[in-house]
Structure formats: structure tokens, C-alpha cells
């Protein structure tokens, strides 16, 4: 097989325009982490656990399952882009307050999934939260504190 060449990739990450030189089959997850966006975690690497969740053009995806060649001109948002460096958003604050995080590997994915849910539905039921977070596995908390955190974040969001 002929040698695979790197490609020029242009995309927007957390609002800034980026250019990368990378192998076209490189996973979005690896490209992010190699460019200092290490908030996105690798859990299973096979689309089961949701630790690597990011938003692409507003859709939640597992970045471990995306070849970077498909990200040309796309808009990507990672956990680092949810808020500015000085403040945390309501979901992050609720995770801190209600013990929604322990080892922290699943947390960025959980928060991305919760943000995606709240964007569509500001008044979710417990079942809505469970469905939205069903693709995010946590091996520490037993989930109840995560669900409690998301519920609390919604309540704090209400006027």
C-alpha cells in the first residue's frame, strides 16, 4: 500500500479557527488531546462509555469513533469550551456541589451530555436525564449523584 500522507485540516474548536497536519484516519479524540485539549478523556475507545463526548456542529458524538478527515470545516466544542477559564457553568457547579464527580474520567462527557440535554429541554424529568446520559458510563458514583447534580442544575437555571 502506498504511504499515507498527512492532510491539512481546518476546523473551529471552541470558537477559534484551527489548522492541523494529521493523518486522515487519526481519531478526533487523539487530535484534540495532542493539541492540549486533554479535558476530553479516553475511556473505552469503542463508543460505549461516552468519556470522549464532544459536540460537532451542535450534535453530541463520541470523538473516539470519528476519523479526523470528516471534521474538515466543522465546529467542535469540547469541555474546555463550555465556559471561560474564570468561571464554571451551572452544570459544572452543580457537579461540584452535589458530588457528581469522583475519579473524573467520565465527568467531561457527562457534563457535555447534560449540556446537550438542557439545551433542548430545560425542565427534564429524571427519566429524560437517564436517557440523555445513557451513553455515559461511570464506575465510581453509582449515578445517583450525577442525576441529582443535573436535576439541581436545571432547578438553578429556572427563573
Amino acid at each position: 500500500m502506498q504511504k499515507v500522507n498527512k492532510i491539512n485540516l481546518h476546523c473551529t474548536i471552541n470558537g477559534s479557527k484551527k489548522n492541523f497536519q494529521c493523518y486522515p484516519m487519526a481519531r478526533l479524540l487523539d487530535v484534540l488531546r495532542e493539541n492540549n485539549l486533554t479535558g476530553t478523556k479516553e475511556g473505552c475507545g469503542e463508543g460505549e462509555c461516552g468519556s470522549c463526548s464532544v459536540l460537532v456542529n451542535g450534535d453530541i458524538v463520541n470523538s473516539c469513533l470519528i476519523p479526523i478527515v470528516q471534521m474538515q470545516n466543522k465546529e467542535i466544542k469540547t469541555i474546555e469550551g463550555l465556559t471561560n477559564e474564570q468561571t464554571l457553568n451551572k452544570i459544572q457547579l452543580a457537579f461540584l456541589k452535589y458530588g457528581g464527580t469522583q475519579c473524573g474520567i467520565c465527568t467531561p462527557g457527562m457534563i457535555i451530555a447534560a449540556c446537550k440535554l438542557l439545551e433542548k429541554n430545560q425542565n427534564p424529568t429524571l427519566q429524560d436525564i437517564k436517557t440523555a446520559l445513557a451513553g455515559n458510563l461511570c464506575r465510581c458514583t453509582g449515578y445517583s449523584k450525577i442525576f441529582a447534580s443535573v436535576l439541581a442544575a436545571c432547578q438553578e437555571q429556572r427563573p
Partner: protein
Amino acid sequence: MNGDPQDYHIIQTKNLKEALTYLADSDTKWTPLAGGTDLMVLLAAGLLPTGNYLSIWDLPELNKIHIEDDSIVIGAGITFQEILTNQTIKKEFSMLTKAAEMTGSVAIQSRATIGGNIANASPAADTPPALLCYDAIIEVTSIARGRIDYDYATFHLDYKKMQLKKDELITAIKLPRSGKPHTDYYHKVGTREAQAISKICFAARAYQQNNKVDDIRLAYASVAPIPLRARETEFFLMGKVICDQVIEKACTKLAAELSPLDDIRSTAAYRKKVAANLLREFLCGIGQKNYKS
């Protein structure tokens, strides 16, 4: 161990014509890759064959749903997320909506495509039983032969083998719209509601006239090397009035007709038992009887 990206050639195609031109190249084998929710899992496991891949994600021609008078035409690149939010599909083909909802998680649904679900040819996929009940037509396109329609019931030939040649791409799934009154049933049995691959999946549709079964489809996944219809049991039920006795006979027929395997997710005995139980629940529903075990 992860596959090394240096070993994989992948090109993003811009439109259907470009993709089909690559596939028509007789010297090179190109493997289409859409949302990557199956193939990229193999990459992570170090099991994806090295070689040439053709990204067909975002091809404009494959990303449309057309509502026509006699059928709904779903582009092969339509994601499960898009299926879930389409109101016509929800109203008229609710088992497909249910199947999309039962597949993976929200993050998988935003990338997994209906064409990929068929082309990956897993006997455990969640949409095929619904598509079999709807008499789906699979549109396959190539430069050499143009568009060809296949009856989905004849599309899968054997484990991972399909009516799909090297230069062809699945381009659309057509679902005939039926005005006749019917009863539908869809049930996936897995270890967990999300992210589980089915132990068994069953979809059914029955048309009745004067309380007799006028036409019926019973479709299963995870009971054979391909998703299939239980034709012998369907044949037995034709023309019958559904009563307890007929239900029990149908369940016995079904157990004889299916030959599932023991594997990592379940056992043959469990699958046979549950296949019959699901059929019983469906038939009890259409017979409007309360079955007492």
C-alpha cells in the same frame, strides 16, 4: 491495541458521483465508511483491515428524506437522530423510530446511519426486523448499472454477505406507505436499555379482515446469521382467527423454525423461549385476549 492511523488511507468524498467513481475503480478496493460507529470500533480494537477507505459521511445526495405519495424514501446517510425526529416516520413507521431509539446512545444515534446499519450486515442490528415488516426496498447505485432496487427480504444472503457488489453503494431505503389498518409490535431484548446489542429482537405486523389474519410479517434479529422472517409460522397464521389454541400452535411452529446459536450475549435455549414469548404477546394483543400462562 489501537490500529495506527498511518496504515489507513481515507478520503472524504464530496458527492455521490465522486464516491461511485472511486468504487468503480477496478484496481483498488475502497471500503465505504459513513458515521464510523461500527468500523471505528474495529480500528480501536486493532481489527480493522488496513487499506483504502472512502468517507461517505455528509454526502448531500444521501442526506434527504423524501415523502412521496406511495412511499417514504430515506437516504442511506440519514442518521438515527434524524429518523427519531421525523414526524412522518414516527406516525407511519413507528417501529423504525423505536428501533432508532433502541440503538446505542444519543452520541451513537447522531452518527449511525440507516445505510450503515444495513451494510454492516450484523445479524443483531435493530432496524432490520422493522424494515422486513415494512417490505422495505433497498436502492443500490453504481456507475455501471445505475440504480437497482432490491426487496430487503432478499438482500442479506448469509452472514455479512449481501446483494452488494464492490462498485455499488446503498443509496436509499424505500418504505411503501400502507393505508390498510394493521397492528405493529417491536421489542428488543438486551441487557440494558441503551448501548446493548440485542439478545433477540422481534418486529411484527398483522393485517386482519373479518377477524382473520389477512397478511402477517414476523421478523427476527439475533436468531440466525441474517435478520429474517419466520415464513413457516407466518404461513401457518394466514387466514386464522387468533385464539389461544392458534397462539400456542404458532409458538410451537416458531420454536421449530428458528435455530439460534449460543454466543457471548445469550443462549440458543433462551433465544428460542423469548422468541416464542414475544410472538405470544404480539398475537395476544391482536386477538385482544388475556392470555393466562
